[in-house]
């Protein structure tokens, strides 16, 4: 899923200051799962903002709505009327959702309520971890299902750096050394020969480095 985090209330408040009627629009898929932008978060943020503005002696009218996915036009449509009734939309979707809204509603003011952080998983209750950087050329088969492009702090493809200690990365004791995990898992799988193979310099063209990416599916073009 795409993991995001709500922006600090003060920052959101600052963005909203010029407006009196604001739609707080949640997204019911990824960011709901990571407790950043589903119905519950929309309701809580609405209440917190109203209170915060009231303390400043200002009233703000908030409308609350959550659609299934802000990154899909079919779901975005459901918000059309609410969008037209408000001066600004505070979108609690990932960056793709915010932009999909902006694309659909050319005249609406779109404000991001979240900081979109990474593609990851819920590793255990309360902990989300980054797993994939969307490099465009997946090599997980070589690395025992653990991605060094994303999870090694230096994106090393040919084994651990000299900073790996007790399974932790030199960057922080909170970060598992991806290479320790890769070595352990390949050993477990009986694939430690993979470790001996020289991995050539990665071709980054399929990644963001090649410019913004598009995917054309001829079979779906109408």
């Amino acid at each position: 899923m795409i993991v995001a985090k709500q922006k600090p209330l003060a920052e959101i408040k600052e963005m909203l200051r010029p407006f009196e009627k604001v739609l707080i629009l949640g997204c019911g898929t990824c960011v709901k799962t990571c407790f950043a932008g589903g119905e519950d978060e929309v309701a809580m943020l609405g209440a917190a903002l109203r209170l915060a503005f009231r303390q400043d002696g200002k009233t703000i009218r908030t409308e609350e709505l959550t659609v299934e996915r802000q990154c899909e036009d079919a779901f975005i449509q459901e918000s059309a009327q609410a969008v037209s009734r408000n001066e600004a939309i505070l979108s609690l979707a990932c960056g793709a959702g915010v932009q999909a809204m902006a694309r659909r509603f050319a005249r609406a003011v779109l404000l991001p309520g979240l900081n979109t952080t990474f593609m990851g998983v819920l590793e255990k209750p309360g902990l989300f971890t980054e797993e994939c950087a969307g490099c465009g050329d997946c090599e997980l088969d070589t690395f025992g299902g653990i991605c060094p492009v994303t999870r090694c702090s230096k994106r090393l493809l040919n084994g651990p750096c000299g900073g790996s200690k007790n399974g932790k990365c030199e960057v922080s004791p909170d970060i598992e050394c991806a290479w320790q995990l890769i070595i352990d898992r390949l050993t477990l799988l009986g694939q430690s020969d993979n470790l001996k193979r020289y991995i050539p310099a990665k071709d980054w063209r399929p990644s963001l480095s090649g410019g913004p990416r598009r995917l054309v599916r001829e079979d779906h073009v109408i």
Partner: protein
Amino acid sequence: MKTDGQSKLKRTLSGGGFAVTAECGPPRGADASVIRKKGETLKGCVDAVNVTDNQTAVVRMSSLAACLHLIDIGVEPVMQMVTRDRNRIALQSDIMGAYSLGIRNLLCLSGDHQSLGSQPEAMNVFDIDSLNLVHAVRVMRDEGKDMSGFSLIGAPEMFIGAAENPFADPLSYRVVRLAKKIDAGVDFIQTQCVYNLPRFKEWMRQAREEGLTEKVYIMAGITPLKSTRMAQFMAAKVAGMDIPQEVIDRMSAFTGQRAIEEGMNIALETIAAVKSIPGVRGIHIMAIEAEERVPELVKAAGLSQRPAK
């Protein structure tokens, strides 16, 4: 400035001599006298001097420029290059430039992560890793081609080095990685500072067993400790450092000048010990901001004759 000739470090090592290199860090500023002074101190007592590349991710004078200052005063440099700050385009270009200016030795590293350095806000590069860099330099040198396969007008004939940390985890993989580095094209290895001798010996044993010491010149890293505080700081804060408690205990029995002497004693004992390990072909002294102590250490270790016979 002399811009022809081969690496003297290579000549020493391939001639069977026990090589000595030392490390020196460029200044955090544009004052060339700092690097020249360090170079003058080290001149004549070592085969070559490593010049760090924004070491510990702290912004300093560029390694290439500092290497030129050394060449200018007659000291052979080993240019260190990390893949943290430059992509393959910049790395290859700087290697050609460095060779054209007389640099003959290159040490390929990935580099400490920028979050540990002076400007943690920076974006890192890590386009390629240190092995990819070793491989690229080897192909540039031996096949005269850059990473795209383009035939170069003049190949950079670098003596190629890399670092290894026998003390990092996992131990079982460290020798596999060394073998990979050799396959990629590395000529010499400088190791992380040796304090944990049993572990270093074990790593060397594994390297010999795999026949790797026949294929690469291994130089053991030596850093004289100056105080208990330094020992504790390095043990706790420097990535990949392994200082056993008994070494820290030895240091904490002394203070001031006596502690400095004890640090020198430990370094001398370590040099004597690594010299007797089959396959160790030299030492690499990293006297962090204490280059003036290197001549004394080299002399006390009985290694002052440079080049070695």
